[in-house]
């Protein structure tokens, strides 16, 4: 099957019948459900742009398995160029949707499992990697969107998975059969889950021997028997039902459309199991995934920043203050923050490396720094955007009141700006800024791909503080400085003894 277009992707979801619940009701057809439309459109953009000649350089890749042209979202990175194009693709899609387009989690899951299964096989002589390559081939051939499911519900965070009162707060193997495994458990906050063709799971944390059954990774179709989705609420989500204008970004929505995935005695054939008890590789899988995923945030969120910076500038101009020095200053501040994050994410890719599997990984230290910056800077540039847009972003009347003959005309006058700018356009832009800067997008920037504490742990682990101490000791003269000794042509002690002697002589001359 060739790469799907956006429309074909949405139609392809009609063939899947996932068990989805929202607001207490079973959703029969996700494709026709108004509440899900923006999320479908956001993900569809990842398919659509691959067909546009002006974007295909970054939206497509050449499969290392078949040599065929594929959507980059199904590609395993095989060079620095791939890693760079990946984050360029993230920024582009952020610019095109103004929100989360959901498909990067699956992409990162595919890459992390590819890298880790190779290493597991090297140690244990298993055949996970070959299985996974066969699965990857299916993903590429069908141009599937797999949802990457990592975060478990987790229950009491002070207890290990195997010690939880409710075993299903972590996904785990209940039974090992000749032809596969039976799994149960819960994955939470899973982006794009309801509109994905497949689910690929990964453990959420480092496991120990006692958590062997929780060390599990596999892939299943989204409508596999025993899998249930509960779609999560978002701020202002039902605005979509109140009117197009009120929704802010009615086309692509707000964040990624997360869901809880409940697995109840789900059968997974061995062919689709990529880790089953190798607890000593859970750290590698989690950290590899987290590295890829955290680096993305300096791409997609910067794409969103581009939109909100453009929107803020447009509003200032419409309000007649576009040239005011404080506005120019604020916009410049927003741009500088966004481009700082962009620099970080490019650095992650350019400093990437080849793993033993042959796939390329980003620089994990820089990826965590990128994400930590995102947890702060997104709030900051959205704050400045709100500052420019003004208080109207939270006090605007509804579309229904604008359409009411009794109040509409006076409201449009009330919200007018510079001559020639339609008041409805001003309201549209203010609603977009409200959607992007007030809603669920902010905590998503904080917690998506892991909370700040997780990034700090990784940064601390990889900072190489001992090497920095050595540098300081060398310059301070505590540790031998070979380069300095070469420059002065003698050992340091002799050099400083001579310097001291010269100082004494000079002092004697002066006095």
């Amino acid at each position, binding site marked *: 099957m060739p790469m799907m277009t956006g429309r074909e992707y949405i139609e392809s979801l009609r063939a899947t019948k996932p068990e989805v619940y929202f607001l207490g009701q079973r959703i029969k057809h996700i494709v026709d459900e108004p509440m899900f439309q923006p999320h479908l459109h956001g993900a569809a953009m990842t398919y659509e742009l691959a067909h546009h000649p002006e974007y295909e350089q970054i939206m497509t890749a050449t499969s290392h398995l078949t040599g065929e042209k594929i959507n980059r979202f199904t590609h395993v990175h095989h060079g620095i160029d791939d890693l760079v194009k990946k984050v360029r693709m993230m920024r582009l899609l952020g610019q095109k949707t103004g929100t989360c387009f959901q498909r990067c989690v699956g992409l990162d899951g595919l890459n992390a499992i590819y890298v880790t299964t190779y290493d597991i096989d090297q140690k244990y002589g298993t055949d996970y990697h070959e299985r996974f390559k066969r699965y990857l081939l299916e993903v590429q051939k069908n141009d599937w969107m797999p949802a990457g499911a990592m975060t478990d519900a987790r229950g009491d965070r002070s207890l290990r998975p195997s010690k939880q009162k409710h075993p299903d707060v972590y996904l785990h193997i209940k039974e090992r059969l000749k032809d596969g495994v039976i799994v149960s458990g819960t994955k939470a906050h899973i982006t794009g889950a309801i509109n994905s063709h497949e689910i690929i799971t990964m453990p959420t944390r480092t496991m120990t021997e006692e958590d062997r059954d929780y060390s599990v990774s596999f892939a299943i179709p989204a409508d596999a028997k025993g899998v249930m989705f509960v779609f999560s609420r978002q701020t202002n989500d039902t605005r979509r039902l109140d009117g197009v204008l009120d929704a802010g970004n009615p086309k692509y929505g707000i964040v990624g459309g997360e869901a809880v995935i409940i697995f109840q005695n789900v059968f997974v054939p061995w062919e689709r199991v990529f880790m089953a008890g190798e607890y000593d590789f859970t750290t590698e899988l989690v950290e590899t995934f987290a590295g890829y995923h955290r680096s993305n945030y300096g791409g997609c969120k910067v794409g969103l920043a581009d939109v909100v910076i453009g929107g803020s500038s447009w509003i200032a101009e419409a309000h007649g203050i576009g040239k005011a020095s404080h506005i120019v200053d604020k916009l410049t501040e927003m741009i500088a923050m966004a481009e700082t994050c962009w620099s970080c994410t490019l650095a992650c890719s350019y*400093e*990437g*490396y*080849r*793993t*033993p599997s042959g796939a390329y990984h980003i*620089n994990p230290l820089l990826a965590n720094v990128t994400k930590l910056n995102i947890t702060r800077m997104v709030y900051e540039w959205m704050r400045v955007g709100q500052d420019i847009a003004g208080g109207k972003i939270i006090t605007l009347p509804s579309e229904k009141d604008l359409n009411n003959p009794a109040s509409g005309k006076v409201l449009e006058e009330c919200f007018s700006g510079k001559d020639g700018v339609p008041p409805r356009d001003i309201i549209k832009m203010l609603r977009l800024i409200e959607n992007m800067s007030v809603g669920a997008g902010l905590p998503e920037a904080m917690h998506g791909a892991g909370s700040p504490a997780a990034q700090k742990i990784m940064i601390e682990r990889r900072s*190489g503080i001992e*090497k920095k101490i050595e540098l300081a000791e060398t310059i301070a003269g505590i540790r031998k400085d070979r380069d300095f000794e070469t420059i002065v042509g003698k050992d340091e002690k002799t050099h400083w003894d001579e310097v001291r002697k010269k100082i004494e002589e000079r002092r004697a001359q002066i006095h």
Partner: protein
Amino acid sequence: MTCPFGLLESMFTIGVRYCGGCNPQIDRSRIVIDLREGLKKMGLEVELTTEKERAVDMVLIVNGCKHACLEAKQVESDCGYPVISVRGEMVDDQYVEEGDIIKILIQRICSFI
């Protein structure tokens, strides 16, 4: 570890190539010093040289981190020689602790002698 060092007719020479060392995760010079000592302790007559013009039997690339700036370019220019690449805490495609790098390098070098 087996190594037919007694059978060498002339001294085995390894060309050492360093990356630029911008932010190394390992002490690159120390690796080469320790390697020289390790080979000597084993009675191996191996010369390590950084002279680029000299004919060598193999090339050891010492990158300070996994990014391995030097690797692709060096492999190209030293085409024809066997190459061992240290990439931070990796030797070729194997993850190793910094303290084990010398042991792994000696094993690899012996396999070429």
